[in-house]
């Protein structure tokens, strides 16, 4: 405690100096869990353990479409060590389905399975091996049904209808019951505009099914509670959304399902849908024992929604001087057997379907299908990724048709602040599309390949020793993309933050409590930074995320720093006002400065606008109750897209990134080595520059993955997944990941906290088409499908 010294200004604590809190926003504060993860000491959800716990196991359908004629669990139940076997008939509540947007997904199959890997029955046993054997002993009598696997088969006359009794909000405008959602967007007069075009290019493109490929398999632990409820520890992306879906199926009120976030081993959208949550709770409530479920890798590939594969048709026209006259496009997204977030993905694909370009006359149609393919839902980039791959290929095709430099064509048509989206929404914050392209183009190029004495690790094929320099051609390609930030189309999105400020042992200490799922994005780091900056306190504790505080919304859509970061900032501001009020109460009588405007908290002290120190936080709060506030924060409202015209103020914020890819291609063998993927991105404000660069580099490499190798292969005849393992689902290794120089632009968005822009997804968009453009330049091939396979390059 400082001593009090009389001065001209009254009583002030002695020995006070100004010092800004370290570790505030704008600093590259290190992650609290970084070293733990690198050294293998971090506890993931799969590491959870409880005394007396049982192991849960899910029996999944080997067929993509079949009627279940009978299920016999007697042999499984008779196996020693088995405590419960559950099927659809054992579900305890009237509510037997769940879903993110539509509750169309059975908790356990109800007489029919609609995709390969659909859960049919559950087992709890005292050992995982016993549970596995018991699951094998369950006899399920299937009668296989024909499968629908694409638009043609799903909408053919007489096609089997997957969800015959639809009454969801999209059903009335769907052209066919196997079309989950359709969003048209129409602006201007495309037919007239097309007549002004000097050059028109069309293209058909195909985007394969990418997986999030997080390393931590789905897992969690459900512990039954004395009050008849359950405590669930689980790796997820949105605790409260899980809770909303779990509780009704258990027949419990939400307050009896208490959720705590367990260590998350990556997400990328793949944990937005429920996986083992309900299953573990059902088994725990049935057996009265804690139940742990951990997916195997194969099960993980079968058990979560992937990125939508897509077929895209585009027509672009331009006048001879390179100005776009019009764009027509049709995007068909395969949502698989259940809705997941397909409708929102359709809205994104449509509204962002022509990219960051100014076009007056546009006709867009996006549809999402129900098929017997694996369910598809959220993945980093969410509908914008598929479109970007196609519209950027089109821009290159158009540039070739015009005899124009592809970057110049993009510059001429680049959107700027104030321009209109195809939805009619005015872009009312910086849109530095041309500037980002200029920046990546102007970055120094990597040195040319040393063909005399190359290090084979730098060559396509690497240590597999396929080339010593023969057959290798370098290519360079560019792309730029636009992604929305936050939830769109009128969704009432909010985040909650609770902040507590108190004095402990004479030191001011803040605690931030939210339900934000830390999935690797760095929220836990940034929340502490925000609290330090806003409260002028160095010691900040981030409380584990749970449902004892209000919803933080989803860790997705690049929204968490904006939304829950914004909520932390907002609540801190209210806490700060309470501090000032307490200070005024205590000291305001002696010091008129307490009543002045512009007081702030800095370095553990209350400071006036002029920098005069009024008191330490410790002095203000000593003997007071802790200040403890929980407040919600909202972004400005959006509105739905019109069902016919697609017009509407649909998105909260836009995010832009551009890439330049440099590749070396072995044109004889079809092997590719990405040499460099330079990225420029406007991030509004980098609250943690190190984290921001990490997000951009990660997103960039994930975009490279779908460009060259990542694909869930589904047998078109049976709709079965062919490669549910990391043996044949290939993700980039360190020898595939190129240098990713990053150039950050920080143009403030006046609507956003600190002016920041969500950063996590935009780099995933433009990375893929930039790589494709570079490979096309090296090979001269059209390459209209990703991932590009060696045979596409060679044939």
């Amino acid at each position, binding site marked *: 405690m400082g001593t009090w010294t009389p001065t001209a200004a009254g009583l002030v604590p002695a020995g006070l100096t100004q010092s800004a809190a370290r570790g505030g926003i704008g600093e590259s504060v290190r992650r609290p869990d970084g070293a733990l993860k690198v050294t293998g000491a971090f506890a993931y959800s799969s590491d959870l353990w409880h005394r007396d716990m049982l192991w849960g196991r899910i029996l999944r359908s080997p067929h993509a479409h079949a009627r279940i004629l009978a299920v016999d669990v007697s042999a499984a139940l008779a196996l020693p060590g088995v405590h419960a076997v559950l099927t659809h008939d054992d579900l305890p509540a009237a509510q037997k389905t769940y879903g993110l947007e539509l509750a169309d997904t059975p908790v356990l199959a109800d007489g029919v399975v609609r995709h390969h890997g659909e859960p049919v029955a559950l087992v709890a046993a005292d050992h995982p091996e016993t549970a596995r054997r018991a699951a094998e002993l369950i006899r399920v009598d299937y009668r296989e049904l024909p499968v629908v696997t694409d638009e043609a088969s799903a909408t053919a006359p007489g096609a089997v209808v997957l969800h015959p009794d639809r009454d969801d909000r999209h059903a009335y405008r769907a052209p066919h019951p196997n079309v989950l959602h359709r969003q048209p967007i129409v602006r201007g007069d495309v037919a007239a505009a097309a007549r002004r075009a000097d050059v028109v290019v069309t293209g058909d493109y195909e985007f394969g099914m990418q997986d999030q490929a997080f390393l931590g398999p789905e897992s969690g632990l459900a512990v039954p509670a004395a009050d008849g409820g359950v405590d669930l520890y689980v790796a997820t992306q949105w605790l409260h959304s899980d809770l909303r879906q779990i509780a009704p199926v258990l027949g419990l009120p939400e307050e009896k399902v208490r959720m705590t976030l367990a260590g998350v081993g990556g997400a990328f959208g793949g944990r937005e849908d429920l996986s083992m949550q309900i299953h573990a709770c059902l088994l725990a409530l049935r057996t009265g024992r804690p139940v742990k479920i951990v997916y195997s890798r194969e099960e993980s590939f079968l058990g979560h929604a992937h990125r939508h594969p897509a077929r895209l048709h585009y027509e672009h026209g331009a006048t001879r001087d390179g100005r776009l006259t019009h764009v027509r496009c049709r995007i068909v997204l395969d949502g698989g057997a259940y809705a997941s977030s397909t409708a929102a993905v359709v809205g994104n694909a449509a509204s962002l379907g022509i990219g960051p370009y100014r076009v007056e006359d546009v006709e867009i149609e996006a549809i999402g299908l129900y098929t017997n393919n694996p369910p598809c839902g959220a993945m980093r980039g969410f509908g914008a990724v598929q479109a970007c791959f196609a519209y950027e290929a089109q821009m290159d095709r158009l540039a070739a048709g015009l005899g124009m430099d592809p970057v110049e064509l993009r510059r001429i048509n680049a959107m700027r602040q104030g321009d209109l989206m195809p939805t009619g929404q005015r872009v009312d914050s910086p849109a530095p599309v041309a500037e980002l392209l200029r920046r990546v183009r102007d970055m120094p190029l990597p040195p040319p390949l040393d063909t005399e004495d190359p290090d084979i690790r730098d060559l396509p094929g690497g240590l597999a020793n396929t080339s010593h320099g023969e*057959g290798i051609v370098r290519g360079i390609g560019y792309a730029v993309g636009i992604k929305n930030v936050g939830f769109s189309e009128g969704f009432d999105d909010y985040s909650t933050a609770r902040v507590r400020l108190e004095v402990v042992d004479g030191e001011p200490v803040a605690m931030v409590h939210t339900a934000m799922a830390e999935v690797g994005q760095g929220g836990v780091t940034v929340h502490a930074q925000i609290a330090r900056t806003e409260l002028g306190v160095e010691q900040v504790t981030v409380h584990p995320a749970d449902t004892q505080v209000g919803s933080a919304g989803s860790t997705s859509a690049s929204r968490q720093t904006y939304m829950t970061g914004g909520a932390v900032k907002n609540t801190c501001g209210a806490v700060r006002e309470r501090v000032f009020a307490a200070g005024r109460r205590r000291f305001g009588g002696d010091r008129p400065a307490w009543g002045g405007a512009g007081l702030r908290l800095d370095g553990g002290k209350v400071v006036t606008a002029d920098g005069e120190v009024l008191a330490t936080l410790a002095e203000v709060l000593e003997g007071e109750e802790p200040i403890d506030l929980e407040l919600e924060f909202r972004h400005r409202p959006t509105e739905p897209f019109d069902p016919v015209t697609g017009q509407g103020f649909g998105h909260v914020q836009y995010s832009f990134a551009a890439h330049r890819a440099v590749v070396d291609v072995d044109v004889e*063998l*079809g092997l590719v080595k990405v040499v460099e993927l330079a990225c420029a991105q406007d991030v509004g404000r980098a609250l943690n520059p190190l984290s921001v660069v990490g997000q951009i580099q990660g997103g960039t490499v994930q975009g490279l993955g779908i460009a060259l190798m990542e694909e869930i292969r589904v047998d078109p005849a049976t709709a079965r997944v062919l490669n549910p393992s990391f043996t044949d689902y*290939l993700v980039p290794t*360190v*020898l595939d990941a190129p240098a990713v120089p990053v150039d950050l632009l920080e143009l403030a968005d006046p609507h956003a906290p600190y002016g920041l822009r969500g950063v996590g997804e935009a780099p995933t968009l433009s990375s893929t088409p930039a790589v494709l453009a570079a490979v096309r330049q090296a090979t001269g091939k059209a390459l209209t499908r990703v991932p590009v396979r060696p045979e596409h390059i060679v*044939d």
Partner: protein
Amino acid sequence: MEFLRPGCWEEALAAKAEHPAAVPLAGGTDVMVEINLGHRRPGHLLDLGRIGELSEWEVGEREVRLGACVPYARIVGELGRELPALALASRAVASPQIRNRGGVGGNLGTASPAGDAHPALLAAGAEVEVESVRGARRIPIDEFYTGVKRNALRPDELIKRVHVVRATGPQQFSKVGTRNAMVIAVCSFGLALHPGSRTVRTGIGSAAPTPRRAAEAEAFLAGALAEAGLWESRRAVPPSVAKRFAALAAGACSPIDDVRGTAGHRRHAVGVMARRTFLWAWEAYRNGAEGAA
């Protein structure tokens, strides 16, 4: 599942005789994956980890006696001169962790057409020494692979070591995969020049039901080299010879379409690899090198 841990080779043979269906476990890099995926649930696992002699090798005058469990990392680090193709193949196996565990015995036991060691063994020339309580025998590598994931082992036999012919000329190995590391072969190719016998041997991986040699291509090349006196003159090989060799190597494939690649690309890529590896090896031979780089 019962876990058998013999302390010596004789115990291992006895255990295998008693439990012919027991699956030998060496590095575990194939077996454990299959068990984890539920593709295989053997009644017995026969752990060879305690049998030290399986991890030893000996360089003889004509051949290297390579223990079945010598890890790939050691082959890369210590046998590059004697077994250049096998060392190159070993370097292309999976990840550093796997290369520290896995060995040639496992590749041979699994006998997957995609195993990286096979083309190198076929090209160099090798014999697989197997043993049972009934006695030992040596199986020529050309006769070892009998079908997809099948080999000439009898149920009671274990692979003890491989006798690989020491390189007397340049050797090469090349593998096509769809990423730049840690990838199972889409197809692969091994090649060895044997200047002493004026022969060329090859090995094709993952482009037929079994690893196999491209016999016609080998014969053509040996003939062309001999006819033009190129072994002696060490002159450059006419492009038409390399081209024909490549075409014959491609023709020796019987590939399939699968999740990793198409038959057409496999055949094409084997041709490209055959031409490139031969030209690299021939260049090394012209420069007087004994082994490959």
